[in-house]
Each structure stands twice: as structure tokens, then as C-alpha cells.
């Protein structure tokens, strides 16, 4: 499956003078998440292609063609014994690790890139929240780890919503708007099982153990939002997955919603009272609900109804999942 077949519309395009070099063997991939840039160099092209396939905003090419990155990673492959190999990752901050498989190294890189990007984007308000878009407006779904944010976001994106992030809502407080943070979708085992039950799947995502010890499944985010587009936040949904519950939206007060956004903020102390004022403006411009559900398609249908979207069509995941085939730019 080619990169184009994955529906990526936001891949970085090299200047014309650089395009002649794309036939070179790639030795670097550059991941851009808003103003944050990570560059990964390696003599292992398959790994670079895998990274590029996970990030909609990644570009593969000669490492020297990239600008100054925010952080960089160097991955080297060494043989161990007759058939074994190890991949050693070294980061610009001195951290790193050694991994027995490419998938483990990839999971480590994705985790570190996403974490570094969150640090690099600290001038924005960062909310632990899923986020999708519809009709030019953003929908935030804040929640703690394990609340089902990523699974719900994945389902909504597969149903036609635009993907902004499964875990980190980047909020421009001055504009009361969300920006896309196009990290890979990262589902825990339960979430992946739930998604598989709701959508046809024929390919396997990247399955690895994250540096925090969690077994996760990385997916290519479907339908990513256009890069650096600011979307006014019009809906805030607190997802609550509960056994036996019908999919129901229940209004909650804007003050309580503000408190919830503050609770799930990752960098409120950095912004202080200005953040509260910004979040107050956000909730004042948004419809605020708790979304209680058990059945994922029913939750998607409920959100679709809320925003006036046609009922979702059951879609196959097979064309949305990670691919390790050709990702060179057309």
C-alpha cells in the first residue's frame, strides 16, 4: 500500500530543488507536530518508513535536507549472534534504549516523540483529551487514562470525523480553538478489541510494549485534519464507558466542565490564572455534556446526531492501518 493510498493529504513537500534527491536511499524521517520537529536518522530504512507511515505529517528523505529539528534520534542496528539484531536508539537529550525488535524501537520512538512534542508545545494549553473535528469545529473529549478516549476517537475518525488527536488537545487559548496534534492513534489492548468488534479489520497494527510498560497498538490516524488549522471548540464531551449503559448525552454545567478541563490540563501551572480565563471562554462557547455509553457504534451515532452529521457507515479499517510498504513521495 502506498503512502498515497493511505489518504495522506498533508505530507510535507520538499522544495523543488530537493525533489531530485528523493530517489536517494532515505536515511532520515522528519516528524512535524505543529511547530515541533523531530528528526530520526537511521541506516535502517524499514524503520524510517514505519515511522513515516504512523505520522501523517512525516516526511522521508535525506537527513541533511531537513531543517534544524527540536529533537533528534539516531537509530543504529547491530547484529547479535548469527541471526539476531538489536536496535539502539540515542536521543539528543542523552536518553535512549536498546531493543530486540523494530516494533519495540518504533514504539519507543513514537512515545518519545509525542512526549517531546508535548513539552515543545507548552506555550499552548495542553489538555489530556481526545479531539476530532466536524464541519470546521472541534469536539474535545477530556478524560483520564483508560477512559476510552483513543478508542472513541478512532471510531469517530473512521466514521468520518476529522482526527485531531487521541490523547492531547492543543488549545490556543486566545482563539478558543484546538489545533491538530497528529500523533499516531495508540490503543490499549481493550480498546483495540472493542474497535475490532465494531469495525472490519484485516490488518494488524503495530503491537508493542510502550516504555511505560503498557501493551499498545499503534494505528495510522484516519482522516487527519489539515495541518495547523485552528478549529473553534464547539463541543466538549466527557466520555464515561459503563457496562450496560445506553449511549446518552447529559448536559453538564459549564463551570463543572471548566473544572474538568483544568483537571485534565497538563500544563496549567505554566499558564496560571490566564489559563482559567482562556478555558472559561472555551466552555462558554461550547456545548458541554457527559457521554455515557457501552456500545462504541452507538456512541458514534450519538455524537453524530449531536453535531448534525449523517449516521456513520460501517467502514473497514483495512485501508487505514499502518503499512510498511512504499512511502516515498509521489
Amino acid at each position: 500500500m502506498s503512502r498515497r493510498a493511505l489518504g495522506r493529504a498533508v505530507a510535507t513537500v520538499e522544495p523543488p530543488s530537493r525533489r531530485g534527491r528523493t530517489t536517494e536511499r532515505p536515511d532520515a524521517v522528519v516528524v512535524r507536530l505543529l511547530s515541533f520537529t523531530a528528526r530520526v536518522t537511521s541506516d535502517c530504512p524499514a524503520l524510517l518508513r514505519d515511522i513515516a507511515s504512523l505520522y501523517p505529517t512525516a516526511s522521508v528523505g535525506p537527513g541533511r535536507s531537513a531543517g534544524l529539528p527540536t529533537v533528534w534520534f539516531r537509530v543504529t542496528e547491530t547484529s547479535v549472534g548469527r541471526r539476531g539484531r538489536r536496535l539502539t536508539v540515542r536521543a539528543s537529550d542523552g536518553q535512549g534504549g536498546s531493543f530486540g525488535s523494530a516494533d519495540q524501537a518504533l514504539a519507543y520512538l513514537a512515545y518519545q516523540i509525542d512526549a517531546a512534542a508535548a513539552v515543545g508545545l507548552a506555550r499552548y494549553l495542553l489538555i489530556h483529551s481526545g479531539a476530532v473535528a466536524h464541519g470546521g469545529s472541534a469536539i474535545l473529549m477530556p478524560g483520564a487514562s483508560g477512559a476510552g478516549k483513543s478508542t472513541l476517537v478512532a471510531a469517530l475518525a473512521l466514521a468520518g470525523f476529522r482526527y485531531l488527536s487521541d490523547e492531547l488537545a492543543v488549545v490556543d487559548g486566545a482563539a478558543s480553538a484546538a489545533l491538530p496534534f497528529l500523533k499516531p492513534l495508540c490503543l490499549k489492548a481493550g480498546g483495540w478489541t472493542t474497535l475490532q468488534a465494531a469495525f472490519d479489520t484485516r490488518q494488524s497494527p503495530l503491537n508493542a510494549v510502550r516504555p511505560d510498560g503498557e501493551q499498545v497498538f499503534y494505528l495510522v490516524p484516519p482522516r487527519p485534519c489539515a495541518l495547523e488549522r485552528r478549529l473553534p471548540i464547539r463541543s466538549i464531551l466527557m466520555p464515561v464507558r459503563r457496562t450496560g449503559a445506553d449511549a446518552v448525552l447529559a448536559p453538564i454545567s459549564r463551570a463543572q466542565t471548566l473544572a474538568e478541563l483544568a483537571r485534565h490540563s497538563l500544563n496549567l501551572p505554566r499558564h496560571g490564572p490566564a489559563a482559567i480565563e482562556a478555558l472559561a471562554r472555551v466552555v462558554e462557547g461550547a456545548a458541554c455534556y457527559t457521554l455515557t455509553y457501552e456500545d462504541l457504534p452507538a456512541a458514534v451515532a450519538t455524537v453524530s446526531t449531536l453535531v448534525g452529521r449523517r449516521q456513520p457507515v460501517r467502514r473497514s479499517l483495512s485501508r487505514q492501518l499502518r503499512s510498511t510498504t512504499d512511502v516515498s513521495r509521489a
Partner: protein
Amino acid sequence: MTTESLSLPEQRPGVTSRQGRTDGPAPERPARVRRADHVAARFVEGELVLYDARRQRVHVLNATAAATWQLCDGEHTCADIVRALSASYPGESKSAIEQDVVEVLDLFSLEELLHT
């Protein structure tokens, strides 16, 4: 970051409150009560939200707690606040309002929202 809702109790005098202490004489507190400088307040759709920048806590106040908070301006004593709220809620007994005000001021103190 934690969030809490500060609410006055539904029950009236005689209940156990204030961190398990049985009601008795109102605790001693400074003659005038004043909001701490590290607390920011913002009304959102009629509800008052407090942000404690020092302890990284957010509180959502109910109407009576919010009214009490607004009178914690360094100009009013506990008795002044009781009088003001009694005027605002003529249907409530003064003793009940006094109980509530003492209780919410206790909560404010416990949460370090007041200037000491």
C-alpha cells in the same frame, strides 16, 4: 490538578460538620476575612469557579458559597457576611445562615483560600 465542589450542607444546626467536629461555638477567625492572593475567581454561567494557583486546585462554588466568597474582601467580618446573606435570603433563619457561613468559611480556610 484536582477539582472540588464546595457546597454548603443541606442539613441545619446540630449536624456534625467541619471535618468531623460537632457543631459548637464558631471558631475564632480574623475579624475581617479576605481572599488569598493566589486564588483567581471566574464566574461561568452564574457559577463561581476558584483556581488556587498555589495548590493547583479548582473549586466550583454553589450560590451561597459564592456569595460568601465575594464578601471575603477584607472589609467584612463573619458577622457582616451573615447579616448580608440574611438580607438576601429573608426566608432563612439567621441561625441557619450563620451555621452555613461558618461552615463555608471553615472550608475556605481548610483549602487555604483565605488570607491568613
